[in-house]
């Protein structure tokens, strides 16, 4: 915000039902988050040297971590705003962090979910999510990475 700003307009977070005043119901956000199977599933076999610092996979996973699940990217997303049936940037970013991690064993299942009707292909790359994120994550990059991984897994 520019120095000397005198008035700031505050509204409830967009894209979620308002309960009262500034309080919104975050359940839809968490339902989307939960639908990508966001929990780690330890792989039966982890390749030696997996996630070595500086490795391509470690850099990719790292770029998607640190999410504070504040829902700001969700609120900034045009597809979410128009009521598009969309998993949203935060959930897809979480999916990437797991799909790209060789220690995790449920990538195929997650790729099926994010490749489905409510998933990756709904994103039109307006990229408001990345500019809105308060901790510097760019979910649209994660979505692009998931699209590449989806193609690779089909091949």
């Amino acid at each position, binding site marked *: 915000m520019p120095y000397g700003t005198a008035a700031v307009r505050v509204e409830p977070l967009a894209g979620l039902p308002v309960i009262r005043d500034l309080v919104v119901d975050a359940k839809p956000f*968490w339902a989307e988050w939960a639908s990508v199977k*966001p*929990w780690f599933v330890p792989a039966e076999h982890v390749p030696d040297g997996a996630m070595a*610092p500086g490795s391509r996979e470690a850099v990719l996973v*790292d770029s998607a971590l640190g999410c504070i699940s504040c829902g700001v990217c969700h609120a900034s997303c045009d597809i979410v705003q128009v009521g598009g049936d969309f998993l949203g940037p935060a959930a897809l970013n979480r999916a990437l962090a*797991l799909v790209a991690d060789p220690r995790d064993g449920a990538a195929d299942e997650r790729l099926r979910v994010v490749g489905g009707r409510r998933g990756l292909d709904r994103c039109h790359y307006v990229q408001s999510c990345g500019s809105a994120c308060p901790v510097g994550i760019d979910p649209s990059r994660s979505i692009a990475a998931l699209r590449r991984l989806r193609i690779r897994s089909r091949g």
Partner: protein
Amino acid sequence: MAEAIDTLDADVVIVGSGGAGLMCLLHLARRAPWLDVTLVSKGAVGRSGCTRMVQGGYNAVLDPRDSLELHFADTLEGGAYLNDQDLAWTLVRDAPSIVKELEEVCGCAFDRTADNRLHQKKFAGQSFDRTVHRGDLTGIEIMARLRDQALRIRPRELEDVRALDLALDASGEVAGLIVLDIASGRFAVVRARVVVVATGGSATMYRIAAPAREKTGDGIAMCMRAGLHVRDMEMLQFHPTGLLAGDSLLTGAVLEEGLRGAGAYLYNGNGERFMERYDPQRLERSTRDVVARSSYLEIIEGRGTAGGGVLLDISHLGAAEVERQFGGMVSRTRLIGRDLAREPVEVSPTAHFQMGGVLIDSDCRTTAAGLLVAGEDAGGAHGANRLGGNGVAESTVFGARAGAAAAELASERPLRNPDRERVHASVERALGALGHNGVDPDALLIELKDVMWNDCGLVRCREGLLSGARAIEEMRDRASSLGVPGSREWNVGWQKALDVVNQLEVAEVMVASALAREESRGAHYRVDHPTRRDDEWLRYLVASRTDGGDLELETRPVRLTRRAPPTRYADVP
């Protein structure tokens, strides 16, 4: 008209969704996945409490050159030998397996070394670099991954629901929990075979304070109302480097200990590196209690900055290096228009962590059958002062143990019927402040924060504590006339009224304990009794309330079962 009260049943009810509560859930679900578990959280599950605010990291012995004995000795030295040694040993012994579980089972991404081992950083008061971390914002990663596990386990989640009191049956046995749904304003009784209390401490009652504001001593207050004993309540840790940001809520937020570990300097308002006078050997890397008290003395003796603080400066490492190692802290200072990477930043000691709490054994059992307490609500593991990096270790280690203990207990204990009179008394007490004008909870809290800061803060004396005790007694009188207009639904003022009652109850115990301990040890410093007295005071204070609500204090000897202080401090020549 009698208030309508919902009833629901569970095998286990967990209060609190921080590190202790969610780790309890994880271990409970592993041991006994068939159990019906209810998770009660005053805020959003996994986003409340202080584990999420952990910056520095997690102490665990992982390197073959380190040892459990060393970590244990550091913990006791840090705790000035007031620790319950069984609890401290349990913490140290279990921490390596729990941190591995967080990584390998929950998928937490901790920083790794070039040869792909867990990186362990330097923290104050420790003889080995053993603090596992993810950058300088470790708690976000741990809590996010534990929250994801909770989404897999799917307990019944009661979010934005606060616990009011333990429900007891007619014979006084633990029968469950009395709760209030903040959103609807409706009350409910959760009947449960086992209750796990993990709500966190109450350092929010100080003028400058670090913890999440929902932490208002609810667990300790309700356990004491149910007749449980607490210990070490005079032991409240101040972190030396809380941010000063005017009236902003960021005031009090911690700038992490790793900054001093990495070589940051502290200057007073005259530009002097004042730690040279207080601890010439360890300087800024001295333990939290020493650095916090030194800064405080500089400030009250008139050598502080204009804003009432001291200056923390790490810019000599170079902006790029500071940004690389402490990105989270740098952006935190930039939020208030300062830049830690390039300039000194004004800081003050900030109330941070409650060492004291409910008496437990190493499986989190209390003297009340069916009641377990884990995390900051419990006392004993840290003694008189907690080491940085031992907090999240405590909450996850003991959370896990509470989960295992709850699984076992739930198969043995029947559901009991809560005594209706007690339930209604608790509900009536909560309703007392609602729907009319009266004493303003915000004003009362501000008063309490000043009393605790001035009279029961970093430097204490008998006169101050007596005056604090009188002020709190008088405030507790006024608290019976608290009043908040408006309806029940999402009434923030009403919730604050319920908070401040708990804060006052805990404050009373803290002041009484601080008055009774006539020596200085760890976080507790008495200017009128400035030395540590191992000859008389290797004893811990235990407090409880009588049926009439009066406070009773006794002392018990610390059992030096594993290690005695190598140097005995005494007031004799």
